[in-house]
């Protein structure tokens, strides 16, 4: 299997760091003064109720819109002022909560776009096709590579997004609700996929509502609520955190069970 990551495994280098990250939409703070860090080789879960600011944080990291204040650094380099395509080329790839595929193309072509444009190195047509095929094999969609993308189910379109993100040769991958709407078996498969991605040397941050998945594979969990970071820690710590249980998991529930 081809290795996708560029970075060394297992080091404790901070690959991504945010300080006082804030985003206002009008008068509303969607993300408010959030400090965070992601270490290389981690799988970090980002959880919180709907409207907590999780996707907004992803959008800020990937450059969809600028920060109102604060700063985000990727491998020590400030990301502010960079456009989404530049951030992608520095090594941060993402998928979308509401699937965004190139509706007028085949599955393979969708993934090839990432290979062509996603990194700073020039990629030939043949190499792009090869990389795209490998990525589709990686997400186990090889059989559908010539299908029009619109013929795929939403679940499979999300996997195409993952393959497309992988061909941009990221060091950091932001997965926005990869597992929404999956059956329990599919959730297990998706968890295995995320582990496989991490084992290829790619750091993963995942927004997820499926607790089983978060608790099963994350090395660390961050909790957002009303745009603020209210807790952070290992899965065990989070599942016993009083505030998190009250606000997010509900008083009766115990996460991870």
């Amino acid at each position: 299997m081809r290795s996708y990551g560029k970075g060394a495994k297992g080091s404790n280098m901070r690959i991504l760091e945010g300080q006082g990250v804030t985003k206002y939409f009008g008068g509303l703070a969607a993300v408010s003064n959030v400090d965070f860090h992601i270490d290389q080789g981690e799988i970090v879960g980002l959880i919180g109720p709907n409207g907590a600011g999780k996707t907004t944080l992803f959008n800020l990291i990937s450059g969809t819109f600028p920060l109102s204040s604060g700063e985000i650094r990727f491998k020590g380099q400030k990301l502010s002022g960079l456009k989404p395509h530049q951030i992608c080329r520095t090594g941060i790839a993402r998928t979308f909560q509401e699937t965004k595929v190139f509706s007028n193309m085949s599955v393979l072509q969708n993934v090839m776009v990432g290979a062509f444009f996603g990194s700073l190195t020039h990629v030939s047509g043949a190499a792009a096709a090869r990389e795209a095929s490998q990525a589709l094999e990686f997400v186990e969609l090889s059989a559908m590579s010539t299908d029009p993308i619109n013929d795929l189910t939403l679940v499979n379109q999300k996997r195409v997004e993952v393959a497309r993100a992988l061909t941009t040769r990221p060091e950091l991958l932001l997965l926005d609700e990869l597992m929404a709407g999956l059956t329990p078996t599919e959730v297990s498969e998706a968890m295995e996929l995320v582990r496989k991605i991490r084992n290829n040397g790619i750091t993963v941050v995942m927004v997820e509502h499926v607790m089983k998945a978060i608790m099963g594979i994350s090395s660390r969990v961050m909790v957002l609520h009303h745009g603020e970071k209210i807790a952070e820690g290992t899965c065990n710590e989070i599942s016993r955190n009083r505030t998190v249980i009250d606000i997010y998991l509900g008083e009766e529930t115990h996460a991870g069970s």
Partner: protein
Amino acid sequence: MNIADLFATHRRSLSVGFFILLIAFVLTFPLYGGIYRTDVLFTMLTYAILAVSWAMFSGTTGYMSLAPAAFFGTGIYVTALLQDYLPFPVIMVAAGVISFALAVVLGLVTLRLKGIYFTIFSFGLVVFMGNAINYVEADVLGRHGWYFNVVNQTVLFYTIVGLTVATVLAAYFIGRSRLGLAMRSIGGNEEAAEHVGIDTTRIKILTFAISAIFMGVAGVIVAPPLSYSNAGIAFSPVYSFIAVVAAVFGGMGHLAGPVIGAFVYGFLEEMLRVEFLIYFQLGFGIIIVLVILFLPSGIVGLVPMLRDKLGEVIAKLRKGGEGEQHANT
């Protein structure tokens, strides 16, 4: 092998063959077509350039531009201003360069706009240029339009044939290039395109400007036969509409679509104008509505439809003989 498979495997040679036949027909047309019909063909080729270059950008990215008339008019005006000073081929180059530059400026201002706003702004440019030039001419320079020097009509005819071929080839090669893939990504989902490393703003401006080159040069070639032009004639919004309607009419799923659309449009326009004079626009409107209602993929959309129908008929005919085939195998 059934008909559908035959079409699928030879699709490319069929397309190439179609274009070669069409070019041969067009090139020899002045020899037997007569002056009037050759003039009609000249107009049809002009429309083809507008439609193909429009589809090159708008059909692929989904940004509906109504700016063709602005670049077309620029070509006409560049000719008017430079015809006494420069040879014709140099004027063509100049018009291409100026249209490209104008499109870059317009793109920088407008291509951040999405959907209907871009469309309206691009249309505004046509109206603005027509009125601004009209004002400068009438109120500042005190003149009324321009007369064009005579250029040999046969030379112009073959020039526009050459430009049509160049436009189609450019559309073909851009479509197959990385640039074409980037444009299709923008048309497919612009936000996703940005996030997989495509500099969407740059790609949009570049391709918008490339498509403007062909429209501007076309303006140069059609100018001399006009004999006279002013801002109202040169920047008539009709040329924008023709580009859009011909491309949609012919269908944008295939490179041949806008060419066929432009040819049918140009032919019908002339025929209906001769036959009905006043009512031709009404008749033409009805035809366009019918095509868009029943052939949403345009005239080229007929090909796969007929192919499938034909395949079905043949399959039905074969069913009778199938028993024997099974016995043989």
